[in-house]
Structure formats: structure tokens, C-alpha cells
């Protein structure tokens, strides 16, 4: 067994610019419905929480070892566990790529602080 780590940062300011330019279409093309709901606060979507989730998607591709944007953004989904801790669920091509890379488990940590949303993903690789 081996460990592989992926890390990424994204700027909430850039996310805000995308929301201003493309609105709901930006949300729908990048994030799942559950992610969008998780990022809404009093009806307003939080750019920093979105930035952290975008970073998580990129960090996941890095941890899998397939480089950035290797699959559709929505193939990598950040959900909340029973104790509100974030967890990753892979779909479609992302799940196929992870399986092919021998990855059995993924662990995620998110952070959101002012200028950056950040994510670290640790992958357990077998074989």
C-alpha cells in the first residue's frame, strides 16, 4: 500500500467573478446540486466554500495521479458526513480513473480563509 497526496488552492475572488459573469450556469456546470446546497447560506452561495470545493476536485485529480481536469468537475463530489466532516464521492470517469490507479480510499480536508479555499486529499493506493 502507498499514500498519494493532492493539494490545491482556489481564490474565492475568482469564483465570485465567475458567478458574476456566468451566474447559475457556472454553478451547474462545475458543482453538483448537493455541493451547491451545502455552499448556500441564507440563500446566498458562499464563494469561499465553492473555492474550497473546486480545490478539492483538483486535489483529487492530483492524488489519483491523472493531472488537472482529467474528468468532468461534477465527477468529483464533496459531500458532508454524519458529523459534517467532508468526504469525497467519485462518479463516472473519475471513479474509473481512481479504480485503474488502484485507489481504494480517499480522505479530504478543506479549509476556507479569506483569500483562499484549500483542499488536501490523501489517497490509499493498493497494488
Amino acid at each position: 500500500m502507498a499514500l498519494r497526496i493532492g493539494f490545491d488552492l482556489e481564490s474565492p475572488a475568482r469564483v465570485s467573478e465567475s458567478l458574476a459573469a456566468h451566474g447559475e450556469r457556472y454553478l451547474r456546470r462545475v458543482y453538483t446540486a448537493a455541493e451547491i446546497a451545502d455552499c448556500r447560506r441564507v440563500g446566498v452561495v458562499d464563494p469561499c466554500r465553492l473555492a474550497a470545493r473546486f480545490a478539492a476536485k483538483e486535489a483529487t485529480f492530483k492524488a489519483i495521479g491523472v493531472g488537472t481536469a482529467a474528468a468532468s468537475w461534477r465527477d468529483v463530489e464533496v459531500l458532508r458526513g454524519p458529523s459534517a466532516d467532508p468526504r469525497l464521492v467519485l462518479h463516472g470517469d473519475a471513479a474509473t480513473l481512481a479504480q485503474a490507479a488502484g485507489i481504494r480510499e480517499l480522505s479530504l480536508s478543506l479549509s476556507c480563509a479569506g483569500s483562499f479555499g484549500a483542499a488536501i486529499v490523501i489517497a490509499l493506493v493498493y497494488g
Partner: protein
Amino acid sequence: MNEKIRQAIGDHARLGGDIHTLADDADLYQAGMTSHASVNVMLALEDAFDIEFPDRMLTRTVFESIASIRAALTELQPSLAA
């Protein structure tokens, strides 16, 4: 078609250089486009060409160069090749 592609890249990819001097096969990510910026390029291209990229095309390889974008657009809308 190339000019509209260059316009979308110039407006949204944040490359910092002159988009008109970029070769058709130049790697946009190597030139400084982030993955997040590529989302904005993708959405701008959808507006410019009145198309929608399917999920299977929302990957790095489709948006890595002007040439690869042109190929994807032509696949989605063959009349653009004319």
C-alpha cells in the same frame, strides 16, 4: 472560428500575453491558464457559439489549445468547419 476562440481565451484565460501571437497548438495551461480559468473559457465559448459542451468534453485535453477547442467545436457543430 479561430478569432472567436481567441477572443474567449483572451477575455477569460488570464494568460497575460498577446493572445494573437499564441500558436494554434500552444498549450494554454503551460501558457498560464488555470483549471478554474478554463471553466470561464468554456462558458464563454458556449455563449459565443451557442452550443453546450457535454460533460464528457469538460476535460483538460479539450481546452488545452486553440486547435483542440476548434476540434471539439467542430465535433459539436459540424457546420462550423465550413
